[in-house]
């Protein structure tokens, strides 16, 4: 590994993308993710890549669509309102079975909302990042080091399953600096079109055309396409879930939280443990596929679960579904850009434990 350096989450992510073989970046500035563009505008030309500031978010995602079709690793990045603009293009990319990486450094919403950290785009990214029957891979880093690590994973899995992958971060993770190191010996696989037989790279009269398309006017043909895609999703669900369990082994109450909120949940759990409350944290790293097996394992001895989010309660739905409502699941959250404090989370934990007595 390289020497530990302090980097902003946005910068670490951008550097990791280059190291993962990302050759093209198309973006449009928006707080709090603009450092990704700024960093790549300097670095990309030095590694023979393309940095392009598009005229809009819609243009940027369509450039990604075209680039991905040629088999090149590519990425775009935005924050909540900008991601909404990109959703049409993301649906097309999913419909054409193309790999790409999309970054969402979330801010408060709806509408233009605010620029402070938020997690209010969970439903959008896990349920419907565009129209039609499809999923995207979703990774939720919780540290600056993970901002770097998950982007590598995102490129690999996007290529492997031929589907878009999203890094769902937030303003806190994007703006903060923490120590980060990069794997100097990492092998970059699948970074060019040579092992992507489907890529539109020019047939040279030597093979059949590769066609990149999401339009299928025959219903039966479209159904077959979608079904085949969902069979692939089943493999993703079976093999690609990632989660971290923190002190859940003996926990009476498990706090489920992702991204920067998981950091706060861990602090709250430490406070709870000092008061003799057996609490733990379940932190999904993949939000789609949701780590169903892992959360059930984490909650095997728990009497209650608490979901904490920077929203009015979105992931709480997945926690209930994953646990099949086997134990009561409650919710605590702040929204609009307000960051919940560990003391507030602790109060909620105590309230829930107290209810048992």
């Amino acid at each position, binding site marked *: 590994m390289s020497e530990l350096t302090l980097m902003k989450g946005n910068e670490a992510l951008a550097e990791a993308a280059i190291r993962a073989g990302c050759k093209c970046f198309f973006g449009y500035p928006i707080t709090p993710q603009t450092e990704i563009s700024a960093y790549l505008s300097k670095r990309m030309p030095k590694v023979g890549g393309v940095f392009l500031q598009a005229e809009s978010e819609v243009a940027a995602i369509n450039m990604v669509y075209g680039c991905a079709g040629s088999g090149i690793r590519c990425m775009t990045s935005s924050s909540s309102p900008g991601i909404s603009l990109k959703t049409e293009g993301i649906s097309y990319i999913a419909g054409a079975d193309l790999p790409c990486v999309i970054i969402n450094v979330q801010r408060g919403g709806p509408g233009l909302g605010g620029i402070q950290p938020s997690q209010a785009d969970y439903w959008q990214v896990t349920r419907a990042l565009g129209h039609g029957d499809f999923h995207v891979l979703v990774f939720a880093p919780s540290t600056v080091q993970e901002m770097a690590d998950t982007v590598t994973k995102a490129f690999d899995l996007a290529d492997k399953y031929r589907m878009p992958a999203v890094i769902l971060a937030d303003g806190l993770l994007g703006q*903060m600096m923490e120590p980060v190191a990069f794997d100097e010996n990492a092998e970059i696989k699948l970074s060019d079109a040579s092992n992507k037989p489907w890529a539109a790279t020019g047939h040279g009269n030597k093979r059949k055309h590769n066609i990149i398309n999401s339009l299928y006017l025959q219903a039966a043909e479209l159904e077959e396409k979608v079904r085949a895609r969902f069979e692939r999703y089943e493999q993703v669900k079976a093999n690609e879930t990632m989660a971290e369990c923190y002190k859940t082994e003996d926990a009476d109450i498990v706090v489920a939280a992702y991204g920067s909120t998981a950091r706060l949940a861990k602090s709250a759990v430490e406070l709870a443990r000092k008061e003799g409350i057996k609490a733990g944290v379940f932190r999904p790293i993949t939000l789609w596929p949701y780590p169903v097996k892992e959360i059930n394992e984490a909650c095997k001895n728990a009497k209650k679960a608490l979901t904490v989010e920077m929203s009015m309660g979105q992931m709480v739905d997945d926690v209930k579904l994953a646990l099949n409502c086997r134990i009561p699941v409650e919710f605590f959250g702040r929204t609009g850009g307000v960051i919940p404090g560990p003391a507030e989370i602790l109060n909620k934990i105590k309230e829930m434990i107290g209810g048992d007595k």
Partner: protein
Amino acid sequence: MTNDILLAGFGGQGILFIGKMLAYLGLYGEKQVSWLPSYGPEMRGGTCNCSVCVSDDPIGSPLVLEPDNLLVMNTPSYDKFIGSVKSGGNCFIDSTLIEAVCDRADISCFYVPATRLANENDLHGMANVILLGKMIKETGMADEAVIEKTVKKVVPPKKAHLIDANLKALKIGMSQ
């Protein structure tokens, strides 16, 4: 042990820079560190602040609301944050720029005429580093070797000629 630090002043005073310096002092002192700038409406209004956490344990929230150590370089920041300092904590004040005197008995305040000292010592624009020097001295958070390594790291290569000036500024602060 955790040391939550809040640094505040106007944009251009080098608040984020000394925040980075602090974070590297922590990193090279083998601690866990985080650094978080204000990027919201306050920054757009000209004032700027920066949260730095230095800890033996992994850091939960990087946002400092109740600092152990506060460093302030303008009156609006002083007025806004002086009440939030933890009981038993410290406040470092550029007394050239801030006339106020703190009436809290439960915290220690250090008044350093950092801007005047910078001007007198031909260290224009380095009042921030002088004030940081005072914080380093009072909190005992770093030794000389770590300080030198840090300054060499955070001063960008294009401004390498300012390494000595930064070290000098820190020394002046530490001797106050």
